[in-house]
């Protein structure tokens, strides 16, 4: 085992320690950043929906691939609903 420890085992241990530290701090940062983003989004959405409700209307939003997928999903869901009803009648 000493043989494979070609960096020097002290060096190796140091790297492993840094690795663990980076993993913890890194995931911590990512989670706390995105958690704060969730809070910010919720505050924003409720503010906009309460104070600027008229402006809602995603129709004109310049979205591209998302909307198409949305349309497909909506149609598919409708078909699904229809079939479910149909079955119950049988």
């Amino acid at each position: 085992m000493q043989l494979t420890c070609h960096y020097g085992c002290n060096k190796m241990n140091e790297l492993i320690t840094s690795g663990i530290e980076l993993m913890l701090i890194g995931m911590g940062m990512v989670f706390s950043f995105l958690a704060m983003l969730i809070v910010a989004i919720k505050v924003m959405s409720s503010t906009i929906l309460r104070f600027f409700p008229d402006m809602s209307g995603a129709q004109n939003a310049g979205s591209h691939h998302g909307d198409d997928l949305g349309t497909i999903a909506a149609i598919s869901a409708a078909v699904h609903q229809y079939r479910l009803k149909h079955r119950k009648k049988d």
Partner: protein
Amino acid sequence: MENLTLLWESTGLYNITGPQAIMMAVGFLLLFLAIKKGFEPLLLLPIGFGAILSNIPVAGMIDEGGILYYLYGGIKSGVFPLLIFMGVGAMTDFGPMLANPKTLFLGAAAQFGIFATLFGALALNVVPGMNFDLKQAAAIAIIGGADGPTAIYVASKLAPELLGAIAVAAYSYMALVPLIQPPIMRALTTEAERKIEMQQLRVVSKTEKIVFPLMLITLTALLLPSAAPLVGMFSFGNLMNASGVVDRISKTAQNELINIVTIFLGLAVGSKLSAEAFLKMETLGILGLGAIAFSIGTASGVLMAKVMNRFSSTPINPLIGAAGVSAVPMAARVANKVGQESNPYNFLLMHAMGPNVAGVIGSAVAAGVLLSLIK
């Protein structure tokens, strides 16, 4: 006669080295994958051809004065990956994520693939022939972000010598998402979980879509400025599109500009597929670590979704957690497809788009963390 000897000595046959020949073969392999197997052809075709051109002896296309040398300047400066990220931002619709913001946690969880791989790369130093310092380990780990421009941007800053292998691994595994993810997703979920139907998403207003990129860049500026170039150009592209007032430049950013930069970026990445840089034990390590990164990211996303499902009032199908790695929109499609295997009337696509685009933000944030901690 003398001239004929000179001519012979100027041929590629006379000058080619074994490693160059192997690298040209690698280039042909990438072209085969791109053209016949449909592996991310928009990137792998230029990268593969760039690999061939880079390894032509005598021609010196990657030496100062050669076209690939000049094109690489666009990567070295960070301009190309950032412009691609801007175009991707303009193509992204944050609607599904804004309708269900807790899916951001899935985009966060999937980044564990990055940090676990960082640790793995450092641990690989025990294997003889593998030597990764902290910068290199971080550059490799970012493959787990499943986001090409982010990986190239980070690699160009931290470990340009590995850029070729990292870019090839990132795009190859993104192409392999439909093969890598499903077994992991099935192994970690029960049939009942895969059948979970989710509530329909509310309609998101245009104003929310306009305010979101501004909020995103503000938070980034305040908390993680090292992620500002990536997140900033992405938000800028997204705002151009969401605002609806600058359609002509938004469309150019999504089409001609991103296409031009893609051609240049692909060829320039190929220029880092020189024999000296690629034909090393380390490349095998990078390819292995990349696969691990994707798998761990997928698993983390799914497990996070299962955890959230316990605490959430509304049901969450754990399959959409796998979309948190990003790889937009491939990973979301995979989630939808695997879901329909269990319940053919379960339409997870839009629900999976939330974690999917959250994953893009997540990996840009992770990139910022790495760039700020590792100097």
